[in-house]
């Protein structure tokens, strides 16, 4: 899924996958921090943003 989205123009670093057990609270915090940083660095996306109100 990541491959095709990136193949069609989504920037690497925009989409993240992770597997976190409910017992792994610290991993959850680390992952969220890392994702937030990486996505912030890419700036606001114009892709997959629907501007029209139809449909």
């Amino acid at each position: 899924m990541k491959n095709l989205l990136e193949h069609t123009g989504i920037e690497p670093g925009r989409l993240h996958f992770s597997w976190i057990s409910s017992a792994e609270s610290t991993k959850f915090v680390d992952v969220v921090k890392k994702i937030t940083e990486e996505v912030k660095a890419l700036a606001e996306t114009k892709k997959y943003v629907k501007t029209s109100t139809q449909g």
Partner: protein
Amino acid sequence: MTAYTDKIRQIASKLLTEGKVDMVIGFRKGSIPMMNQPLFIKTPGEAQELIWDSHCALNLANYVTNRKEKIGIVAKGCDSRNLVTHIIENKITREQLHIIGVPCTGMVDRHKVSAMIEAEITAIEESGDSIKISGNGFSKELKKTEVLQENCAGCTHRNPVIYDELVGELVPEQSGVDPYASVREVESMSPEEKWNYFEDLISNCIRCYACRNACPLCYCPTCFVDESRPQWVGKSQDPTDVRTFHLLRAYHCAGRCSDCGACERACPMGIKVREFTKKLNKDCLELYGWEAGLTVDARPALDTFKADDPQDFIK
């Protein structure tokens, strides 16, 4: 390839006369050039309507989904791979099928031929490797290899992978062709260029869903695009909705697509919709060594789990 016609008629007639099948699915000549139609026959007399030429590009596996009868079906390489996929996915049983295998040398790209001529093409004839198109006041001879569908030009499974009888000698498989050349080209682009490439590619999509309808893989009772509770994707012409449709259509074909090209052929706007599915085919091959529909004895890539499956995308 036109010599196959007699053999197909003969086999179909025999199967129906002997009662081995209840129905034969093949092609008949279409009402306009290059547009052959699927034909379902139930009596030996109708077998004379069956034909074979380089315009039988629809995928007949599309018509056996959930059928209860015994069916004789004409199948070229890609059709046979989709029959295998149908069998794996329990959409038909092997015992119900009598597969009339057709070794194939490729189908003619109707979009390409139409684009070459401004006037209306009213007739098309072929003999061997040459194709003669004609219309009001013109006639032109073409080489079949010049106007092959893109997926046929890069095809490495021209012979049926599963069959009960053949209509002719097996043809040599092509080597040295790269089915994924255009995927590689896109892969080398920057994210921005990729985005714009696909934006341009699907810009004239009218959301008619002909690509979906022509596809043998798309047999859900209710397609995600037609559902309204929940509504998975907007039904408008907004570029985001159009792109979402194409993306999801492709994902639903992941690890199942034989690259038969029926979607692209069916598209009234000439959109290269295979650019989406081809990337997934390439990934399946590179990540899992999987090509769809080659054997009924293996489970598809997205249907199994192996300990050594690539998983470095999960952090």
